[in-house]
């Protein structure tokens, strides 16, 4: 709870500072001497990654799911180690602003010639920002093959916050 409040304070402070920067940039491009245009901003910040931890594969195919709250469920036959987390994004902007969230349904992970897929799920498909912005999380389910080769698997996925 306390962390949440601190994060909100941080977002609020960041917006205040940036709104000032934005108008300063505007002023720099005009010739007027005393002119300020205040623009409504939208910010997005990534504060944690989607982390499945370390997985030791088993003899059968299985899955590892990380919920949007970051909790892990380790499938039968797998060994899951380390801390897991869901990806978190903080949005800042005008209070009451409606923002839709796009996250792809799945992502491909590769390690050399080996690959795995993960399905992704966002905690919200749209958000109405409050006075201190808003946040959403992305969790996922990783499909681990039978005797999946060890290695470091990497992949990228796109997340966009869309203004209407």
């Amino acid at each position, binding site marked *: 709870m306390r962390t949440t409040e601190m994060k909100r304070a941080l977002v609020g402070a960041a917006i205040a500072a*940036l709104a000032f920067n934005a108008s300063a940039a505007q002023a720099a491009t005009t010739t007027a001497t005393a002119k300020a245009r205040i623009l409504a901003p939208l910010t997005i910040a990534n504060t944690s990654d989607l982390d499945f931890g370390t997985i030791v594969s088993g003899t059968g195919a299985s899955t590892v799911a990380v919920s949007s709250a970051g909790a892990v469920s380790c499938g039968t036959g797998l060994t899951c180690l380390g801390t897991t987390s869901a990806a978190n994004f903080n949005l800042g902007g005008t209070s009451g602003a409606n923002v839709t969230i796009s996250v792809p349904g799945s992502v491909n992970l590769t390690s050399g010639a080996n690959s795995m897929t993960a399905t992704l799920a966002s905690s919200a498909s749209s958000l109405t920002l409050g006075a201190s912005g808003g946040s959403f999380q992305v969790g996922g389910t990783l499909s681990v093959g039978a005797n999946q080769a060890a290695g470091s698997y990497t992949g990228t996925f796109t997340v966009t916050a869309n*203004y209407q």
Partner: protein
Amino acid sequence: MLRMFRAIGLFAAAALGVAASPASAAGDLLVAPTRVILDGSRGTEVVLNNIGSEPATYRISLEIKRMTAAGGLDEIAEADVNAAERAALDIISFNPRRVRLLPNQPQVIRVGARLPEGLPPGEYRAHMLFRAVPDAAAEAASAPEAVKAASGGMSIALTPIYGITIPVIVRVGDLDAAAKIGDARVADTRDGPAFEFDLARTGSRSVYGDIEVTRPGASEPLLLARGIAVYPEIGSRTVSLRVPPEVAAALKGPVRIRYSEDREVGGATIDQADRVVK
């Protein structure tokens, strides 16, 4: 009080900076304003700022999105765009398209429209995407994890590439539009309770504005939502606004729903309706 608040904010920044994984600090961004409307060929400017703690390279591009009946925005692949959407991509010009920014360094993106002769009247729209390009340096920095993984098991590194889209709308000719508020209800969605109503649109352009839900006799609005659009590709959409359970309970009963234009353009009422929410 305000000073105390700021102090806490700074302290939080320091604390979180340590707690959060260092790779995720690159790529945070700010975009302002959140909507661009071009009438004729006069251009405008959009500000992009790097609000992360590391230098980052940002790419700016145009995408076509179509609104769904549920109010979402579906991305349309460039191969599948129709003639009007193709025209939008062709007439909207912007510069620069790629920029490297230091932390807290703003950049102005110039946006304009080049209208060819004989372009039919209508609303042409694309969505401008601002997104950080993953750094080769950052990827190399996460490589030591491979060594750790080789000792047994798999390590997974999923990098989000995240950004913001804002609509860029070019209006050609005299266009008009009207909207009508339909049935309202409190619904249980996958995301939790939501206040929902139907919003129908007629005319040759989009409608855009703010929603205010009030209870007759009460001064404080029950619900405020800004930036609700109905785009020309659809005649009607559902507006679904997530609300906390206590607000959902308070919304039941007689309410007045007002859909008004953006405050910046006068805030005139587009439509207003009295509904009984079940």
